[in-house]
């Protein structure tokens, strides 16, 4: 394009569209942060038996990964003890429920609680988001509100000119709807500045965290008995080696130059 397009914009566009959208977006972020802080239910204490089950499992996993730290006889003792107790279900939180298979997640009140918490968080995000989207669509759609100070390739047209159906408009012009999306995705640093780094203001980052958390929250816990049996099998096949084997030679070799 030889000469830059000139569009005469009413300066009121800046004061009545660009600024309000930005301010509203920042405010909703802050509102969402405080709302989710309020809605957050404190994590419930787990019953002692459940805790013991989890940590025992962790202990045998520790033995499985760090067995090289202890001598063969010490390892053998621990292995036998752990395998025997795991097979007998001594670590299980609920020994009576052995062999009954996976419990239904819907029947577990603790699980329901967790799901309610997640629902609350989701609602706190979805409601303001759709409200603002509707507000912008109703009042401001179709406006070109600003011009970027740098040139861009035409691929950005979709991103920057949503809601404006002109083919020949220079990509540097940004429509109001696109400005909304840009602020939606780009305000995280602003929230970090205002609310501190572990805020709950931005929904996008939260959604990302949720999708990483695990594909299926409904699937819930595996059957602990199966986990213990698998752990026992894993322990059984370990071929022990000792980290202290030959350590004196390694050390001497390392300090050879130093002496």
């Amino acid at each position, binding site marked *: 394009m030889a000469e830059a397009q000139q569009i005469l914009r009413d300066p009121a566009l800046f004061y009545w569209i660009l600024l309000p959208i930005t301010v509203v977006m920042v405010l909703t972020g802050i509102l969402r942060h405080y709302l989710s802080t309020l809605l957050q239910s404190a994590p419930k204490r787990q019953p002692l038996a459940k805790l013991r089950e989890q940590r025992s499992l962790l*202990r045998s996993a520790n033995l499985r990964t*760090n067995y*090289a*730290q202890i*001598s*063969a006889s010490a390892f053998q003792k621990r292995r036998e003890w752990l395998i025997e107790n795991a097979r007998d279900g001594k670590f299980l939180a609920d020994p009576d429920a052995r062999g009954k298979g996976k419990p239904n997640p819907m029947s577990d009140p603790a699980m329901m609680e967790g799901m309610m918490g997640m629902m609350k968080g989701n609602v706190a995000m979805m409601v303001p988001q759709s409200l603002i989207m509707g507000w912008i669509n109703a009042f401001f759609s179709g406006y070109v509100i600003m011009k970027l100070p740098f040139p861009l390739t035409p691929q950005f047209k979709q991103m920057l000119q949503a809601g404006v159906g002109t083919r020949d408009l220079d990509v540097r012009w940004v429509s109001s709807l696109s400005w909304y999306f840009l602020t939606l995705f780009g305000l995280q640093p602003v929230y970090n500045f205002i609310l501190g780094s572990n805020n709950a203001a931005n929904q996008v980052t939260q959604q990302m965290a949720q999708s990483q958390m695990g594909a299926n929250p409904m699937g819930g816990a595996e059957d602990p008995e199966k986990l213990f049996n698998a752990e026992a099998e894993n322990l059984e096949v370990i071929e022990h080696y000792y980290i202290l084997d030959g350590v*004196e030679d390694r050390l001497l070799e390392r300090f050879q130059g*130093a002496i």
Partner: protein
Amino acid sequence: MANPLLEAPSKSSPETAIDLSQQASTFITSQSSWLSAIPYPLSLFINTESQEKWQTYENLFLACLRTGDDNTAYACLESLTDRFGKGNDRVVALQGLYKEATAKNESELAEVLREYEEMLKSDPTIFSIRKRRAAVLRSMGKTSDAVTALTNLLDQSPTDAEAWSELGDLYLTQGSYDQAIFSFEEVLLIMPYSWNMQARLGEVLYLASGRTEGGDQMKILSESMRRFCRSLELCDDYLRGHYGLKLVTTRLLEVLSTSKKPQQSSSDPVRGDLAPPSVDAVKKLNELATSKLAEIVRRSNSGEKGWDGYSAAEIIAARELLDRDTQKIER
């Protein structure tokens, strides 16, 4: 070096504790600046929270308790309670700690203990309080009760390295070396790269070797020596590691020279234990430890940069060990 206000309080020496407690009142007044005095709706837009802030409060609290500045400690505790609420596990433990520290006599301490037990009766999952209870029992001299408390705790939470290490320590004071060794091994299973724990286990093994004789003693001594070696492999200039290595190799040389039995050349396949080290290697390790100790003492005393983190008492002990050695040669 890192900011001492943020470091774990257990690491700090008495000098830094005094330093910290002197800073405490200035820190507390610095926290109430104009930022936190903003009226309510506007204060929503400003964040005065950070993890460092509360970590600092906790460390100052502990430092003040150590130096006897109970009033400042109480001020820190108040802000922590205001922020996190009375029911918070950590705050509850800190409150207990404050009561313990200000208890004037045995009976007041027993009162604190009774409070802990009541709290645990209503909710046995507050692990911080269970640990405090074990600590109080220990400081009251009821070692066997403390051991029971810790073994119960560890049955329910067997991945707690802190508790295992404390239990090992308790067993050690009782002289039950086997149990102590077991506990420290358990710590290593949780934290395999902690060189201080490797050396600690080496120390316990060295102590335990005094009880045995003959082949068993040699086995334990060489195991102890290897523990120290591993510790040094993980941390080159660890003073305690070098100190222990020197001690144990000296002892091992004596044992090796007196033992008539021909050395087993290979490791014992049934028990899976390692063969005792060759005399040559032990000698070399002894030399290595001696020269390293001398280097550390020399550099630390001349205050070289990067060598000034050693505790003064340990340096003195190392020097004393070295002096003992030279006297022997002169004779």
